[in-house]
């Protein structure tokens, strides 16, 4: 894997930006160039959140992933994985947390959450890796560890070795929550392949 496009998506507050940061640092530690794009401000208030992370062995120019060019998507919420379908292609791999978070129109009973929405991906031959990251977080004893559990799954699909990831997590997370997140990462790796 000389270059790649990783897309992170979910709902504001799920720890998406931290997951993308850990991944970026692991890529840099392995010697890749990388660029990451985020959106802040109005777009961040409880809405749909995404980050584009591009890496390569040569210089990365554009910070944005083109339509249809995602290699790996790390989706923190099922419907959000489907929302960014135009960024995917039939060879994309989508790691998706099987959690449902109701958007306002669903929460107020105006619309319903789409049933079996992941069929929208599998029916297009996209590889879908469903993960119950919430269950992993519960198992390790910290519900906020969902993001690092998902990073654990993602680590199986990227060219860095386990030690690089563990080193980055140790360097980037506060001591207080490090142990539980390292467990979440390991559980995520087990769930990955």
């Amino acid at each position, binding site marked *: 894997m000389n270059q790649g496009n990783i897309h992170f998506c979910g709902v504001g507050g799920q720890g998406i930006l931290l997951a993308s940061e850990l991944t970026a640092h692991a890529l840099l530690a392995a010697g890749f160039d990388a660029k990451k794009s985020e959106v*802040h401000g*109005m777009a961040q208030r409880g809405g749909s959140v995404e980050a584009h992370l591009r890496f390569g062995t040569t210089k990365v120019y554009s910070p944005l992933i083109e339509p249809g060019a995602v290699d790996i998507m790390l989706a923190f919420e099922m419907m959000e994985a489907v929302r960014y379908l135009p960024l995917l292609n039939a060879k994309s791999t989508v790691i998706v947390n099987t959690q449902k978070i109701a958007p306002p129109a669903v929460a107020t009973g105006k619309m319903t959450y789409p049933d079996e929405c992941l069929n929208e991906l599998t029916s297009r031959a996209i590889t879908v890796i469903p993960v119950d990251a919430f269950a992993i977080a519960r198992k390790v004893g910290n519900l906020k560890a969902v993001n690092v559990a998902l990073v654990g799954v993602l680590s199986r699909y990227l060219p860095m070795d386990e030690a690089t990831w563990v080193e980055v997590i140790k360097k980037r997370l506060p001591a207080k929550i490090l142990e539980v997140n390292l467990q979440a990462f390991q559980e995520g790796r087990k769930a990955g392949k």
Partner: protein
Amino acid sequence: MTQKNTDAEKLWFSGNEALALGAFEASVQVASGYPGTPSTEILENLSTYKSVYSEWAPNEKVALEVAIGASFAGVRALSTMKHVGLNVAADPLFTASYTGVRGGLVIVVADDPSMYSSQNEQDSRNYAYAAKLPMLEPADPSEAKDFLKLAYRLSEQFDTPVLLRSCTRVAHVKGVVTRGEIEKPTLTPGLEKNPAKLVMLPAHARGRRIAIGERQRNLAEFGETLAENRLEMGDRKKGFIAAGTSYLYAKEAFPEASFLKIGMVNPLPEKLIRDFASQVDTLYIIEDLDPFIEMRVKAMGIACHGKDLIPAIGELSASVVRKAITGEAGTAAFAPVDLPPRPPNMCAGCPHRGLFYNLNRLKVFVSGDIGCYTLGALPPLSAMDTCVCMGASIGIAHGMAKALGAEGLGKAVAVIGDSTFIHSGINSLINTVYNKSYSTVIILDNRITGMTGQQPNPASGSTIMGEPANAIDFPELCRAIGVKHVRTVNPHDIEATYAVLQEEIERDEPSVVITRFPCVLTPAEKKRPKISFTSITEKCTGCTMCLRLGCPAINWVPLSPEEAKGMGKKEKQKGYALINETTCIGCGQCLSLCKFEAISCGEGK
């Protein structure tokens, strides 16, 4: 004079973090700005460098004037703002072009193509031309830092303020940045009288206008050999002229082609452009928003493609550029699937929600303003009817009152946040009183600048550096302006707020209602112990009153007739409301709306 920085580690920085580091390495002494996405984090980061004085100003005009003053006193100064902020600062900008500088003076302006967090999509390069100032445009975080340091050198060399144009995809993109040399200041700070240069009386200004002409010619000549205006010759069938992120997108789309990458977008290097154009078969100008470079290249008499192919609306990307030029879309992409939207929403427990619920109930026309509370325009609150620019709500409500006369009494209100009121609402309130209006102004005082990420403002009681500061007393200020009726309410108290609003809106005199409760995201509020509320499901009749708040902590659970029956409810009950106890912070707004006692005050958490 430079000093070697020993720490050569590679940094993973956003454009805004890189600009802060660049300001530090350029030995900037004074920095002043106003928060605005995507520029906010420049000063937030710079304030962590203790050798630099940083401040949040009440608005961008004040911020630029502070930076001008610091420059006049002989130190390097920085002012940061978003694109619309430069409109506010335009007055000092145009004349600072005449006075020139002593210490280097740079204005960083961040554009927002595609309007991710803005009310319009303007191209700040036009200001560089109009104010006759040089402008640099970096493409990524690493260039942002280097270009800022270059901007200070240019500023002092050519005696001019320098504009640096950032944008969302520089400010909020992360990339690899390396530390550089710290440039030692060359000037000794102090005051030097020089009225012919610093006092812009007409007689002095006429002389300075001539000096600007010479400066422009010198800068244009300088740009011809500036390393940041760079030729990259490849396949000569296609030649691209581009600056900033547009260069990255074009390079990504056509890596084999020839490029003239422009680092200084104003003034443009004419000889270099002519030379490049003569070496390529077809010339393309790739730029987002306005045809700024294209118009100037065409004025040189050079044939080129530009906005005939490249969209003038929204941000570009590699695929947009490729498709515009070849007609091919690149990788075949899937069409989007129709899904329930997930728009941004006010937080659970946001004090603004109670106010907008009441404004919806009062059926008044709401003259709105810029902030988190602009989300009050979205359903189910649907209680904002205008939003133009920072501070506009009060003047617009007054204008409506004057247009409608007695007919309009009780029909319109203005809403404005605490920071926006200080930014540019105070003048309008003075006008409302002076010109004998009847409009009611509601100041949404949540103690902080919310939308951009909880920056302290002159009413918060602290500075960007974390020091305690005076906090404006809004009721006293409004009374001093001449408002006789000033009321302060807790917006979580729905009924009390409703009563006060009803009374003040009907009043045939100017009045101010201050809805005061801290933003839930302030550090103090985050720390405050919360008691979440719980639903008593058996009592919920599914009346949906609480859902009208649009609170993200209240979810509708649909029921089939069988399920409803099974729960001991009427078959026709279509569902019930359920409070998410992990999200609820117990603001109490829903409690007062429930007539069936189906919500209870839960346990502490």
